[in-house]
């Protein structure tokens, strides 16, 4: 299922690009796009795996831009 989440404190366009690449590499993620301008992340993954995917994604995000949070 495709779901969209707001990203708080996403301030750097380069970081958005790095996060997108990193999250796309996560095993259970089918696809992920991050729009820096609208501060939104759209992830496609299985419903049952979504929660764990979001946790892993948050960790990947923390590495790139501290303080950026996924709003669930």
């Amino acid at each position, binding site marked *: 299922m495709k779901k*969209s989440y707001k990203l708080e404190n996403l*301030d*750097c*366009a*380069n*970081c958005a*690009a*790095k996060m*997108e*690449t990193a999250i796309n590499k996560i095993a259970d993620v089918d696809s992920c*796009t991050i*729009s*820096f*301008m*609208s*501060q*939104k992340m*759209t992830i496609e993954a299985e419903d049952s795996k979504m929660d764990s995917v979001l946790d892993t994604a948050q960790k990947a995000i*923390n*590495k*790139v831009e*501290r303080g950026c949070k996924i709003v669930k």
Partner: protein
Amino acid sequence: MSRLQKFDLTKIIIAAILFATGYGTDIIWFFIAAYAIAGYKTIFEAVMNIIHGHVLDENFLMTIASLGAVYCGDYPEAVAVMMFYQVGEFFEHYAVNNSRKSIADLMDIKAEFANKLVDGKEVTVDPEELLLDDIILVRPGEKVPVDGVVVEGFSSLNTAALTGESVPRDVSSGQEIISGTINLTGALKVRVTKLYEDSTVAKVLDLVENAGSRKASVEKFITRFARYYTPIVVAFAVLMAVVPPLVMPGQIFEDWLYRAMIFLVISCPCALVISVPLSLFAGVGSASKQGILVKGSNYLEALARVNTFAFDKTGTLTTGNFDVTTIHTQGAISEDQLLELAAYGESLSNHPIATSIVARYGKVESGLVTDYAEVSGKGISGIYKGRKLFCGNDKLIKDLGLSWVNPTEIGSVVHVATETEYLGYIVVADTIRDNSASTIEALKADGVTQTIMLTGDRREIAEAVAGQIGVTDVLSELLPEDKVSALESVLGENTKGHLAFVGDGINDAPVLARADVGIAMGAFGSDAAIEAADVVIMTDDISKLVTMKKIATKTLRISKQNVIFALGVKAVILLLGAMGMANMWEAVFADVGVSFIAILNAMRALKL
């Protein structure tokens, strides 16, 4: 400006003053103070990020570059690096927030509240809480919160926020109204027909917000490029700092370290990575303001490359309504009189041609026509005002033994005659929209090389319409299922540029999906059209296509300008830096200055 932004700006100003003082007095402490104020946050972030495992980021690069300058004894330059970096960051945040806000304002169509009527009393609720069949009151000046039907009252609605049209729409009891419009003159009682989440406002907001997720190829190129650019430049910097002093005789380490620092400063691709999404986002936003909803920035890009436009005829190039187009009198009778006779003659028929003649005439009093008879395949006859009238095709007139005039105009003809005299004819046709011809002309002027019309109509009608508006290719007599294959045959021949298809969405779903860009028009509330199309134009105004193409072309041009400019300047200064012909100021310009200019340029897309 937010408090945080004001704080950042204050820091920059203080650092600048200290810097200027240091420059004037040559006392190193001013430089140190300036450096500390301008740079403490950056250095802190660099350290924190390294701890979290992320080393190669802007903060780190700027820290290293400025420390390198300090090592070389270039204190002013070290401070300059930090200071200009802060200026750049400040401006970047300001510009991004500004455009996000501009677009949020453009899309300020959601109503904050709704006045629900419960047992005659008003209760203020959130629009999202409204249920189907609730009755709400919308006062003048208020936004319509959800889609519904007017049950009481009459007023005009300002639809500009959704359609870009400045002419208000009059509404009265029984008419449907959509959310996002602003009530102007009279209070309206409305019955809710769609929940907030299914209403037009929610759909439009959703579309525009998600447009950023469908990325244009320019965007993808930039992000991929940036991924490789930074590591490569940094690697070069390291090599430059280390190799030449060791390998080449007589080279001073500090010289090469300085050059390596310059490389580090330029290694950030920020200008590129920000300006392209910014301009595309702004382009989508300005299009929405005009009532043109583009579902993805990739479609905006595709539109700029469209050189062929295919149109569905009925409902798109024409209004889809039969209307009287010509009244030609032959006898001693005025046009109004001929119309009156035809209207009464046709008043008892249900045929669309008959009803359009009656509609054109106005009010027809019943009971004035007697002895009404239909002659199948030919027409009708009846007695009106004491005379026997015949209305029909040429066969009917031939049977009367009279001669008639064949119309030159294309459409369905109704000849009118008495038993002894031929009176004239009336032509009823699907009306071509007023601005169809000018739209086609404008599109051609804008670089569209081929225009195609698809229709199920007879060839003569199709070709006549095409001739009147300037369409180059006509594909007529098509059955609905033929439209896709007809389009494909045209697509096949066209290798350069993209194909856009414009239809009213109702039966065009397969064709819309097949074209490179599918555009649905007049989709005021039509779910199927919004689903199938890539671009939705909220009104019937076909001239919006020209606006759309202009916005797309300009937005893409701005993006390309930014890419070429940013890459060009960086390449030049990298080259000069490697050869020792550039200094830190120029490096900082190549980074911050280029960012600044690229962002300013990108914001031009908001003003389209």
